């Protein structure tokens, strides 16, 4: 069926309504109850899934004069964003105490960022894209700085703001040149201009690389990654988590839209560069993570490493590679959120993010330790966890396109990453704790963790459904 404006935009409309509802409730409810708003928001996001599923049957369409695109890729990523938002909202429960004030607004901002991601997923026009990306970015600037009394949080926010705005400026400048070279900012129209194999004119290429640079910044790839460790460490844990899955996914999605969809025929002009960057990013992230002592900072470096893996999928410029990116992002979502859920639950009780504080966690909370163990293994890409299959697909894509050296770098980095992940595991399981008091985990976090665990194992063992979704998302676009 052909979607109307209402049915096509239904998820966004629902999100807008939810936003409004929250705004009203925040004003109506007393401060003490405002923490419940997060649960309301999480529950309110749940209906998005069936809506997305329903929309999946509609086929690909452009709405609003080519501003908005409804296709499977967009829906796939909206699913990812929704899931991420729900889990982050559940995680926020653990942080109620640390956030000094403005709980209601916190949830509002998360919803706003989600809204931005939705728009980014569906945007078919550079104007739309820019606004959506800025909506995401600016929301995250605020969220990162949310712990007003915490110098680190402020510093992180400042750095993110400065560097993020710089990247936005570069991105914007790039868009200008694409516009200048093609005379349009409509993606489908630009796509139609160049047939496969035709070389891109210099101005377009110039603009394209500036845009790529701006997007690589979001994706946290070398050499645009410098903000990542600092911001990850300084930001409130749920924000870091959302940043690592939501914002990063958005970056890759847009990169896919802009590079892959538009210029797949000219892959020879950009793919080698991305392959190099992928290798560098993988190495940088994984090597830099080795000496880290703070788990959030370590996750920052790890996140850089994963961005490198994902870049492989873009660089190989094949269906397999793109499928792999989709699969990887979906599995990475649950995996990474599981880690951050544990971090949040742990630091709520102990107040520490230092890795050595995790000593003996398996005795203090077997559940948290086990969840962390499984999640770290999944991050490292060990079967039967979901992370494994994602990496498998990426390496498969690389090898299939003849990027053997790149695949070797990726493979070597698996070993390095296993080293620092397993250091944490060893600390949790084999080291003696200083404090033996058990760690209590609140129900929402417990629930979220179970979801993540189920997803990690489920997607890792029964890869079929997600694989087909990932594949369909590529084919349908």
């Amino acid at each position, binding site marked *: 069926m052909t979607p109307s404006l209402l049915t096509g935009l239904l998820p966004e409309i629902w999100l807008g309504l939810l936003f409004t509802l929250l705004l009203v409730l925040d004003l109506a409810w007393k401060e003490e109850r405002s923490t419940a708003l997060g649960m309301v928001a999480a529950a309110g996001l749940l209906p998005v899934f069936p809506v997305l599923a329903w929309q999946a049957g509609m086929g690909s369409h452009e709405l*609003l004069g080519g501003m908005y695109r409804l296709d499977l890729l967009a829906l796939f990523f909206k699913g990812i964003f929704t899931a991420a938002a729900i889990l982050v909202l559940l995680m926020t429960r653990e942080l109620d105490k640390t956030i000094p004030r403005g709980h209601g607004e916190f949830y509002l*901002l998360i919803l706003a960022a989600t809204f931005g991601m939705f728009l980014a997923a569906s945007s078919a026009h550079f104007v739309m894209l820019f*606004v959506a990306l800025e*909506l995401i970015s600016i*929301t995250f600037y605020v969220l990162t700085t949310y712990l007003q009394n915490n110098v680190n949080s402020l510093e992180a926010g400042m750095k993110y703001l400065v560097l993020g705005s710089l990247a936005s400026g570069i991105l914007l400048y790039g868009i200008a040149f694409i516009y200048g070279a093609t005379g349009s900012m409509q993606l489908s129209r630009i796509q139609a201009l160049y047939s496969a194999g035709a070389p891109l004119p*210099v101005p377009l290429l110039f603009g394209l690389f500036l845009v790529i640079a701006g997007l690589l910044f979001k994706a946290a790839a070398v050499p645009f990654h410098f903000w990542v460790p600092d911001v990850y460490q300084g930001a409130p844990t749920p924000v870091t988590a959302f940043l690592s899955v939501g914002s990063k996914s958005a970056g890759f999605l847009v990169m896919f839209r802009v590079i892959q969809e538009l210029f797949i025929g000219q892959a020879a002009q950009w793919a080698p560069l991305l392959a190099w960057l992928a290798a560098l990013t993988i190495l940088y992230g994984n090597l830099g993570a080795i000496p880290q002592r703070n788990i959030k900072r370590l996750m920052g470096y790890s996140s850089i490493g994963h961005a490198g893996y994902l870049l492989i999928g873009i660089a190989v410029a094949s269906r397999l590679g793109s499928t792999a990116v989709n699969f990887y992002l979906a599995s990475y979502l649950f995996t990474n959120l599981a880690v951050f859920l544990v971090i949040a639950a742990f630091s709520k009780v102990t107040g520490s993010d230092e890795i050595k504080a995790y000593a003996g966690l398996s005795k203090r909370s077997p559940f948290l330790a086990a969840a962390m163990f499984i999640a770290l293994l999944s991050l490292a890409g060990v079967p039967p966890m979901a992370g494994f299959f994602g990496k498998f697909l990426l390496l498969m894509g690389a090898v299939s396109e003849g990027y053997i050296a790149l695949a070797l770098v990726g493979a070597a980095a698996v070993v390095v990453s296993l080293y620092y992940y397993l250091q944490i595991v060893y600390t949790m399981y084999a080291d003696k704790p200083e404090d033996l008091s058990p760690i209590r985990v609140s129900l929402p976090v417990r629930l979220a963790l179970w979801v993540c665990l189920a997803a990690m194992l489920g997607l890792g063992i029964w890869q079929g459904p997600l694989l087909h979704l990932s594949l369909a998302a590529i084919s349908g676009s």
Partner: protein
Amino acid sequence: MIHPALFYTVSALTVASALGVILARRPIYAVLSLVLVLFGLSTLFVALHAFFVAAIQIVVYAGAVLVLFLFVVMLLDMEPEALLRARNKTMMGVGILFGLFFLGQLAAVAKALPAATGKPLPGTTAAIGKLLFTTYALPFEAASLLLLVGIIGAIVLAKKKL
């Protein structure tokens, strides 16, 4: 497109003011230099038939955004920054080097730009407004949310008590 005399005069002024933004020791001078830049650009916009944009450049940008800057400068009572030569020379070097390189690239790019094809289409308020409320309705809505986020953010962050 534009009369050369106008263009060169305005650009010289604009570039000079832009340099003022990054060189002025006193923050207040820097802000005011930026206002000059905005005015210069607005002039060019008009010359390029982008009337609506030129208008809001003055009204919104210079009139609101930069005033905000001024408020903060006043509020925080900022001290003048150190002299140029006391600043980080490496940074300066990197910046200038990159700048020269970038401009070099840009020169090559500019040469390859397609010749102007379209006939001038005046960017009047009516024309822009019509587009904004039809084709660009969704970004427009998103922009409103963006502003809302900015407001919420500013309040949550900077206000001492909520």
